[in-house]
């Protein structure tokens, strides 16, 4: 706790601090999308035939789909033909075996972000599968994980090494044609992470992937697949920052989680992509499909997210509570300031008996930021004694921002219970004055009040991540008041 607060004090300058571009030679396809591009991606990655077929099938269906427009978001139409669909750091051609072989420029990039691999390796005991421009270039701790029987590798590797698992689970939670962006992802995804926790294994460390979008005009299409067998446990951290640039960048990731009987998956995200300048120019468009299935009885999936970046956020991490007594959780902090827009929330599908879900959503809007919570709680007919509690709080800073709440509740079982609580509050002059009268600067007061508001969500994050989240929140709200 204290370390976290200390970090806050160290924050000095305003602006987007992770804004820099690393010069690494990349092998990039020219912009444009058609079947040949998909074949090329697949060939470049030397994928098994079934993956190519799967991609093409997604692509053909995608051609018939239309971009969704129901979200509370306003942005110019994305020209998908102007995006390059593949880029790989050159140094990945002969994949590095250790950090020594990693491009030093890349390592410096991580250092600038305050996440040096070396240090993490030693101090935090976190294995890092670093996804840099779509291709994994550094993986640590693989061996220790292997001893526990845990598979933690890039999804491309998994296709070669564990084709049966990929065949069985890829697209099993988010089908290829689930939605426009998920279908696009299925067609062109370049890499991502695969995690497999065998029966009864408690993953010995927190698994972490840092994503960075680094190639000009390159949409990033990541896919993450996590399978937790009976009675296993895994905590997965996903964090990302991006260099500053001018063009809008599309990001359409897909994450699938599968929890078998008594298994637990904890998925935490800190998202800090470039939000664009004061007018929104240059920010990342973040269209993400995340879904987990609690397949077995008593399984448990929790999503925790801290979304401070991106110009546009469209994201609804969801849980399908199939197994009896299974539990789904969603804890979210979403910040929208300057011209940022966020439409985010969750879906909880209660199918099994006595399934429980908890939703805690904290939206913070400042400047002209627009923040929408959109959530669905559905109690299916068979969801005997299903329970949901939703708490949806909005905090406004200034008088030009907006907070919107769109809760959808569908109850098909008379014994199910659904509760929804919502509040909207404003950081008041009174609160700021009270802090300042005690000697606390206005900036520190704002981050203190905001952190207080987000406490329930931060409490769900693993320690190192909570530190980063507080730091990000403080940075992203610098200068929001006064």
């Amino acid at each position, binding site marked *: *706790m*204290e370390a976290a*607060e200390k970090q806050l004090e160290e924050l000095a300058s305003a602006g987007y601090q992770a804004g820099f571009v690393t010069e690494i030679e990349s092998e990039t396809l020219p912009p444009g999308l058609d079947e040949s591009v998909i074949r090329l991606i697949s060939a470049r990655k030397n994928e098994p035939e079934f993956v190519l077929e799967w991609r093409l099938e997604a692509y053909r269906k995608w051609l018939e789909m239309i971009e969704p427009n129901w979200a509370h978001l306003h942005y110019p139409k994305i020209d998908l033909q102007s995006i390059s669909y593949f880029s790989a750091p050159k140094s990945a051609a002969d994949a590095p075996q250790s950090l020594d072989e990693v491009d030093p420029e890349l390592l410096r990039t991580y250092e600038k972000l305050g996440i040096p691999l070396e240090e993490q390796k030693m101090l935090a005991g976190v294995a890092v599968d670093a996804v840099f421009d779509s291709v994994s270039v550094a993986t640590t701790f693989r061996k220790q994980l292997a001893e526990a029987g845990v598979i933690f590798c890039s999804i491309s590797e998994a296709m070669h090494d564990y084709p049966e698992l990929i065949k069985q689970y890829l697209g099993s939670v988010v089908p290829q044609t689930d939605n426009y962006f998920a279908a696009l992802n299925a067609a062109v995804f370049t890499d991502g992470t695969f995690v497999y926790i065998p029966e009864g294994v408690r993953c010995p460390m927190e698994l972490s992937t840092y994503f960075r979008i680094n190639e000009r005009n390159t949409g990033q299409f990541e896919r993450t697949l996590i399978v937790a067998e009976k009675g296993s446990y895994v905590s997965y951290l996903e964090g990302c920052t991006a260099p500053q640039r001018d063009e809008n960048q599309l990001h359409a990731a897909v994450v699938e989680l599968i929890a078998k009987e008594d298994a637990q998956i904890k998925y935490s995200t800190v998202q800090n992509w470039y939000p664009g300048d004061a007018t929104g120019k240059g920010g990342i468009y973040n269209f993400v499909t995340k879904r987990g299935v609690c397949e077995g009885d008593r399984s448990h999936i929790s999503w925790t997210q801290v979304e401070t970046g991106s110009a546009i956020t469209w994201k609804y991490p969801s849980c399908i509570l199939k197994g009896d007594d299974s539990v789904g959780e969603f804890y979210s902090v979403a910040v929208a300031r300057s011209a940022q827009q966020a439409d985010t929330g969750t879906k909880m599908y209660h199918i099994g008996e006595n399934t429980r879900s908890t939703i805690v959503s904290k939206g913070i809007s400042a400047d002209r930021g627009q923040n929408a919570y959109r959530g669905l709680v559905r109690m299916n007919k068979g969801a005997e004694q299903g329970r949901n509690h939703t708490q949806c709080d909005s905090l406004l800073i200034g008088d030009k921002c907006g907070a919107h709440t769109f809760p959808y509740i569908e109850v098909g079982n008379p014994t199910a219970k659904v509760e929804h609580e919502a509040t909207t509050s404003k950081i*008041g*002059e*009174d*609160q700021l*004055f*009270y*802090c*300042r*009268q*005690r*000697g*606390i*600067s*206005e900036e*520190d007061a704002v981050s*203190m*009040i905001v*952190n*207080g*508001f*987000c*406490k*329930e969500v931060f409490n769900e994050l693993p320690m190192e991540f909570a530190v980063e989240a507080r730091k990000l929140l403080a940075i992203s709200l610098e200068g929001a008041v006064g």
Partner: protein
Amino acid sequence: MLLSVKDLHANINGEEILKGLNLDMGKGEVHAIMGPNGSGKSTLSKVLAGREDYEVMSGSVTYKDEDLLEMSPEERAQQGVFMAFQYPVELPGVNNTYFMQTALNSVRKARGEEELNSLEFMKLIRGKLKELNMDESLLKRSVNTGFSGGEMKRNEILQMSLLEPSLAILDETDSGLDIDALRIVADGVNNLRSPERSMLVITHYQRLLDYIQPDYVHVLSGGKIIRSGDKSLALELEEHGYGWIKEQEAA
């Protein structure tokens, strides 16, 4: 002289509330300011603490030989000005201990003193609680959130004892307190009396002054101090009401 207010005029929302207020306070003195509703009591405390929606039109405030009005609210706090709020503000989710540690360290840092780590701070705050006869449960809660009126005021006194101000302004600290809470708060204040600390006790009622004995009593009316005296003035007021002084003034 610790504090010297000269011919202070201040507005809120364009309306003149303080109309030429004069006040001098020496080191270690306890001054009470009494006055009817709307006389400018609250405005005075807020102007001294630096609340920005109050506009100073003319006059001066000198504190420790410096121009107080030039300082931001946090600078004033760092220089030893403390205000116990009439209505303390809730900060949901902000842990009270963390809040107080941050405040103390901000003040210490500004004074060039070493910041306290959590262990040192806990030791200090536990000692303060003991001195003030207060319960440790205050530490675990969110700042003022769900506090009773008495708890809020006690929390203010706790902060005052922690920050060890040179000038403590008690803005109607007695409002909304029952007699037991009033006594606890007054005991706290009395504990904190010292030759190094001046106090400005702002109150509507005389009853607080039964517990906190002031060196001087001033009557504020119509934005000016119209009468000053020793503590017997408070008793006279209690007996005759504010109307009595106003009549005398008019005569």
